[in-house]
């Protein structure tokens, strides 16, 4: 192999010589910031973010509707309403949706718009590119979903049993944390699908809304192979609201429920995120993305 120094050029630059940061870490951080900033700019400029925000903010209306239109509003506890909204709507429905909406396209969009050859010919670590973009997704989706959850909490205080006091805020924090982990794990999965397949949305839908729902009914420990299992385990309501009678019924007629606990669930979600992010980086390094593969094909 030839030595790189033997390829020194006697070139007269027609443009100023660019300056790259010295040191591997500094270069890495530069690329990470560039990837993050670029992705964030693209996300924030597009009108589809408004659509995503509108859908995400719909749950806020529910507690208000209950407060103003329900005949039995005093029978409804604000805590109960918020727990259900945050658990079922925000964490288990909207978080996967936002992941599919934003994260599948982190790499998929470059493939679709054929800009991926430009990205892959930049002298940057692939991991910096992937992590930077994932960071932008996480920031945008957390801002949207987190605000929606916060507003839902605020709206739920119009009902009884919930207020901006210490207990309430602790509960809110727990749910926000679970939401963040749900966004991370689902986002990493969506990112991975976007890196591996051309049609990540269909496969993502089949997994997140087909397989995950199906697995909850299959006896045994099949639901351990879902993300929803762990996000649900993070929620206090999952343990509190299931009374003994209901649990016995489930054990008898549906399936054995194996609980993992909130802390283990959180670690598992972090693990899932790390593995899928790592997998995405490996795929980006290995896969040949250039679109016009061979003439005539």
């Amino acid at each position, binding site marked *: 192999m030839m030595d790189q120094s033997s390829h020194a050029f006697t070139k007269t630059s027609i443009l100023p010589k660019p300056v790259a940061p010295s040191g591997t870490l500094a270069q890495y951080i530069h690329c990470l910031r560039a990837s993050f900033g670029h992705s964030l700019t693209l996300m924030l400029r597009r009108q589809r973010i408004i659509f*995503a925000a509108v859908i995400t903010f719909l749950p806020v209306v529910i507690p208000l509707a209950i407060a103003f239109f329900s005949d039995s509003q005093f029978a409804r506890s604000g805590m109960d309403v918020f727990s259900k909204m945050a658990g079922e709507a925000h964490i288990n429905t909207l978080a996967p*949706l936002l992941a599919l909406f934003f994260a599948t396209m982190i790499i998929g969009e470059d493939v679709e718009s054929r800009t991926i050859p430009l990205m892959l010919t930049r002298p940057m670590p692939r991991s910096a590119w992937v992590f930077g973009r994932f960071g932008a997704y996480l920031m945008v989706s957390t801002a949207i979903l987190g605000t929606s959850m916060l507003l839902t909490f605020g709206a739920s205080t119009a009902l009884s049993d919930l207020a901006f006091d210490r207990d309430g805020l602790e509960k809110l924090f727990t749910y926000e944390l679970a939401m963040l982990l749900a966004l991370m794990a689902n986002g990493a999965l969506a990112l991975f699908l976007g890196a591996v397949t051309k049609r990540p949305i269909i496969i993502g839908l089949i997994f997140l809304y087909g397989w995950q729902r199906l697995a909850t009914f299959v006896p045994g420990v099949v639901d351990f192979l879902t993300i929803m299992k762990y996000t649900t385990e993070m929620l206090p309501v999952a343990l509190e609201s299931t009374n003994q009678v209901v649990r016995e019924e489930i054990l008898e007629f549906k399936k054995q429920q194996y609980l993992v606990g909130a802390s283990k669930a959180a670690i598992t979600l972090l693990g899932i995120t790390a593995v899928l992010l790592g997998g995405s980086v490996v795929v980006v390094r290995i896969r040949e993305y250039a679109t016009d593969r061979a003439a005539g094909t």
Partner: protein
Amino acid sequence: MPVYTRSYRNYEGTFRRRGRWMLIVEQELRILVKGKIFQFLCLGAFLHWLLRLFQVVAYDVIMQDPNHPMAAMLQQAKFLTVNETAFFDFLRIQAPMVFLICLLAGSGMICNDVRNNLMEVYFSKPITWRDYALGKLLSLVFVGLGFTALPAIVLVVIHNLLAPGWETLTTTIWWPVEIAAFSLVIVLPFALGILACSAVMQSQNYAGITAFMILVANGVIAALLAGFLQEENYLLLSYPMSLDRIGQAIFHQPNPVFNLGWGWPMAFVAMVCLLCSVIITRVVRRAECAP
């Protein structure tokens, strides 16, 4: 052999005046069947049909023989009975599959044409916006009906062939019509909705996820409203539940949940169809009229 005075020749055949949309349908179907995911979904739908076929054959064969050891058991197992409910359930279970297939096939139909400047190519031919839009829509509808109405009607035919005498035929004479009507109620709004998303969004993947987001958000909101306000009729705000309600009416199914008749859900579905049609028409016509 004609003698040509110029270096090019005009088309000498007669232009097709009717059914030009069929070309679009043919082209879309040809592209679709090549897809691996489509074949996978076809397999899933086929397995369900196979189970139903087994149900029909087992029911008809066993019920013809009153001395059959399983006859008594079969009479107890109501869910195995081949009646209107069985076909209603078959179509309900096929509905998510139809949605996925429409999503797969339809999410890129318009936006990909816009992205690749194919609209200009289409409209430079003697194809009008009506041919284009109808062709795209009908290709989805045909695929959807191929997963719902067609297999269900085949099952009805098999059921009639296996059952002795003409009694079954008189009982089931309207089933194909009911099946076709409900299939159309499932397929047409899905197809229109996904095409509308494809018309509005710039990317195939975004069009797909947008359609799904609307559906999921709609379902969740309806369920939560119904739960919290303890009013089951709010469930009809959910699009899939509306379809269910219409299906119940078509197949004469009991309705233990809703007080409302099928008129409201039907109006809801019609409104969705109308809205989507307007969106598709506007986008396609704009492309046709573009300078």
